[in-house]
């Protein structure tokens, strides 16, 4: 059978090469012309705990969502087989290590007790023995799954003999076995694989050779399984794609936006962005130098925001990246930026809270935190992005808004985007503009907070012949402390009212993206990573006779109340469905607050795993056809 698209899970212990496997496989698949979306699920752990990649490969488009059940399960260890055996589709394929066959659930120490109980229950319900051998036998007999056994040990031993490798180093090559078996089963051509290995192990030719050797060994062992899962001929039609995670894309956009100062304190899932920026902090391109960008690892997030504000005052485009716990520490600094009209961008990758919560899992539960945290009233802007490409453009937009209106801008993203690897169209740099706002070029008596304008022209610290003051206290036009009630009212209003200018300046389509039918039966409202799965769900339901529309909110504050009200008024309120990775479907409260309209229904998920297509389609039917008002999703290990 030839598939238009296929879903897969590749799992193994954290640190065993799962991430390497997908980096190389995705590149090989993209090389041949397939679209890939791969989410990475892992524990807050360095080595040993269960991690997996959940991916979708498509021959016909760039995938937007992830799906269960999967067509392919690739297990580097017993825990993966036992944790995911229920995720396989009828007639799917399971690739597993012969060495794991005898393992029983109870012998695997890394499985949490609660997970053990859950897996045990799944085994009992199916009447199978809870061992790798037991569940595989069940899959083969009852689910029609084709079993592809790979002897990891034998392949690696043979490799060791050929290259005289130290046996203790062999585990490093397990990813090679995974990559090779998937390449055989999906019938990826050898040239694409060697290209991908070459790109990943650039400058380490030995590793490329060794991995190609693994490929030949696996290929001869699995010869009869070649093309067992056959994907259709690629027809996406792009001659080049960007293959990057959300963290990568934001970093690239910051380089394009001209960021010159980035501060950070290490935190998941934000730190990778800063590490990548370090790599590109100064580039001597043939067209001229790009940079320098000072990336500063500070002693805490308070110093991160404070130093970013300082750098901004000196005229550098500056930003800081963090997650919920770090953002909480930054709040006083954001208030200072508001009071002093300082352009600064905070890239905020949400993860599961409260407190440490689920540090490596995804969430959209910090919406209210991003919009309302900080004392006093002042203008701030909060942007969200629905996918990698939007994240690119929104990153640049964030700096333009920040500098033009002299406000803090929060770019609200999440772990799902941060850690998922996707094939994306190359951003169109020609359409990108840089707006630094009005800059004071004179000298002499300068009033930093000139009240004749809502946005006073900005001079940078160090500007020739100019002296200025800033203070967190209420201040006069020069930036000196002033508590006079008239000045207070004028300054306070100026800072709050510029929000209106921001609202007017942003084009409608950058505030709210609309997808689907213009005369819908139901409207889904969401923001961030729910975009892809929502649009795909609408497509599925359309085939079942339900016309849906998706509102992808990109400007979260100032909230595009008028645009949203117009859209959601098209259907009865119980057919307005908020989809969000949270408990509270919090954007409903924002809509109610700004439009006076109550949203009737919600579909939420707060397991820390992304909403997948099948569960969303089913939930939408329950809401729209079945009349349920709230559905809580939970699928995924």
């Amino acid at each position: 059978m030839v598939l238009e698209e296929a879903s897969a899970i590749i799992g193994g212990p954290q640190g065993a090469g799962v991430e390497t496997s997908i980096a190389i496989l995705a590149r090989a698949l993209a090389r041949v012309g397939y679209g890939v979306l791969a989410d990475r699920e892992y524990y807050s752990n360095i080595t040993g705990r269960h991690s997996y990649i959940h991916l979708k490969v498509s021959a016909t488009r760039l995938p937007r969502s992830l799906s269960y059940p999967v067509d392919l399960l690739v297990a580097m260890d017993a825990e993966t087989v036992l944790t995911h055996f229920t995720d396989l589709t009828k007639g799917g394929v399971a690739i597993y290590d012969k060495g794991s066959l005898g393992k029983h659930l109870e012998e695997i120490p890394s499985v949490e007790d609660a997970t053990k109980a859950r897996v045990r229950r799944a085994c009992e319900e199916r009447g199978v023995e809870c061992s790798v051998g037991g569940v595989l036998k069940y899959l083969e007999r009852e689910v029609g799954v084709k079993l592809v056994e790979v002897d990891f040990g034998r392949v690696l031993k043979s490799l060791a003999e050929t290259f005289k490798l130290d046996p203790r180093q062999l585990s490093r090559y397990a990813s090679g076995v995974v990559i090779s078996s998937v390449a055989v089963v999906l019938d990826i051509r050898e040239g694409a694989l060697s290209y991908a290995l070459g790109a990943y192990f650039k400058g380490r030719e030995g590793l490329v050779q060794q991995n190609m050797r693994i490929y030949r060994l696996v290929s001869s062992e699995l010869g009869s399984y070649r093309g067992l899962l056959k994907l259709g001929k690629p027809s996406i039609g792009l001659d080049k794609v960007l293959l990057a995670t959300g963290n990568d894309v934001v970093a690239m956009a910051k380089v394009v936006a001209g960021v010159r100062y980035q501060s950070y304190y290490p935190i998941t899932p934000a730190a990778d962005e800063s590490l990548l920026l370090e790599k590109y902090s100064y580039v001597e391109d043939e067209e001229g130098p790009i940079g320098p960008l000072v990336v500063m690892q500070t002693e805490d997030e308070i110093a991160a925001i404070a130093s970013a504000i300082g750098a901004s005052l000196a005229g550098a485009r500056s930003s800081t990246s963090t997650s919920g716990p770090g953002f909480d520490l930054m709040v006083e600094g954001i208030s200072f930026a508001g009071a002093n009209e300082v352009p600064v961008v905070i890239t905020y990758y949400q993860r599961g809270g409260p407190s440490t919560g689920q540090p490596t899992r995804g969430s959209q539960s910090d919406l209210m935190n991003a919009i309302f945290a900080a004392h006093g009233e002042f203008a701030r802007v909060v942007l969200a992005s629905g996918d990698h490409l939007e994240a690119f453009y929104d990153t640049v937009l964030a700096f333009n808004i920040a500098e033009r209106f002299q406000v803090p801008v929060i770019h609200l993203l999440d772990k799902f985007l941060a850690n998922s690897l996707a094939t994306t169209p190359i951003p169109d740099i020609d359409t990108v503009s840089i707006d630094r706002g009005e800059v004071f070029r004179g000298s002499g008596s300068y009033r930093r907070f000139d009240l004749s304008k809502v946005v006073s022209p900005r001079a940078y610290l160090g500007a020739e012949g100019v002296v200025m003051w800033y203070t967190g206290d209420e201040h006069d036009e020069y930036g000196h402390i002033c508590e006079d009630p008239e000045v207070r009212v004028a300054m306070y209003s100026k800072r709050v009212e510029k929000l209106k200018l921001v609202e007017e300046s942003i084009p409608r389509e950058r505030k709210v993206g609309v997808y689907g039918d213009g005369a819908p039966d139901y409207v889904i409202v969401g923001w961030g990573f729910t975009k892809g799965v929502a649009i795909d769900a609408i497509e599925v339901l359309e085939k079942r006779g339900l016309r849906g529309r998706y509102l992808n909110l990109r400007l979260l504050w100032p909230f595009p109340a008028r645009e949203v009200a117009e859209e959601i008024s098209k259907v009865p309120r119980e057919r307005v469905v908020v989809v969000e990775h949270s408990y509270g479907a919090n954007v409903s409260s924002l809509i109610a607050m700004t439009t006076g309209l109550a949203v009737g229904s919600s579909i939420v998920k707060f397991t820390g795993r992304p909403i997948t297509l099948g569960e969303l389609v089913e939930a939408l039917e329950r809401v729209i056809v079945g009349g349920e008002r709230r559905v809580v999703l939970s699928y995924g290990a």
Partner: protein
Amino acid sequence: MERRSYRTDLWIDWCPGCGNFGILTATLKALEELNLDPSKTVLVSGIGCSGKLPHFVNVNGIHTLHGRAIPFAMGIKLANPELTVVVHGGDGDLLGIGAGHFVALGRRNLDIVVVLHNNGVYGLTKGQASPTLPMGVKTRALSWPNLQQAVNPVALALASGYTFVARGYAFDSHHLKELIKAAIAHRGAAFIDVLQPCVTYNDVFTAEYYRKAIYKLDEDPSWDPYVREPTEAEEKLVKAFRKSLESGRIPVGVFYVNPHVTTYEDRLSSVLKVYPKLNPANSPIEVSGKPVISAKAFERVFRDFIVYVES
């Protein structure tokens, strides 16, 4: 050349007799004698009585958050290394709420001067004990003698890696001015602990107390705090430490100067070759509203992320 006026015309709202007047006078004098360009000089302060100082000085002034003057200053200095950046903060500000930043600046040896206004109390909130008030001391506003030990600012600065460490006295403006000038001239993180009476809330460590207790380090002709060769660093550091622990009389003057440690600017230029000549404040980011990076350059720079399809 016409003499610049470094004093703004704002009325100074410190209590009459406040030690801050002495620190302000020394600051103004130092700026004047160094003839610093006001537009290339930045005073950064935290919160409290000391925090208001920049408003009284006619150079760029950033009155920031409680405890955070150092990281604000760091961002300014890293973005524009041409600027002279001086931090003014109280003891609660720099050694209480902002102690982490104080230590971090020493580790970095970034070219910033930190002036500690050390009066033992939180004045603006009515006299609570600060991190430099010794244990067992009961100042006017306390309900009982202080239960927390004092931190030793000079010892902490030495341990943190500051490469210029000194102590001055607010009411010896001439001496303090010289310390400030030397600290500004020093390349690297410089720290001056300024003993400062609080006339309103500190009735123990008064001007009279300091007049009797203070002596100058350079009264001893053998006192030489300058590390002349890198090999002397350890010995001079140990001597400075020991001096900082002296009880009874209080030494003021320069404790330690080590010009041989690389500054953060130097370290940064080892990885960003063009820095500090080309820096965040002076490097272009746009040409007529377009990014400096073209579509073609984007593909070149980020080639590792681009896959050319070969179907």
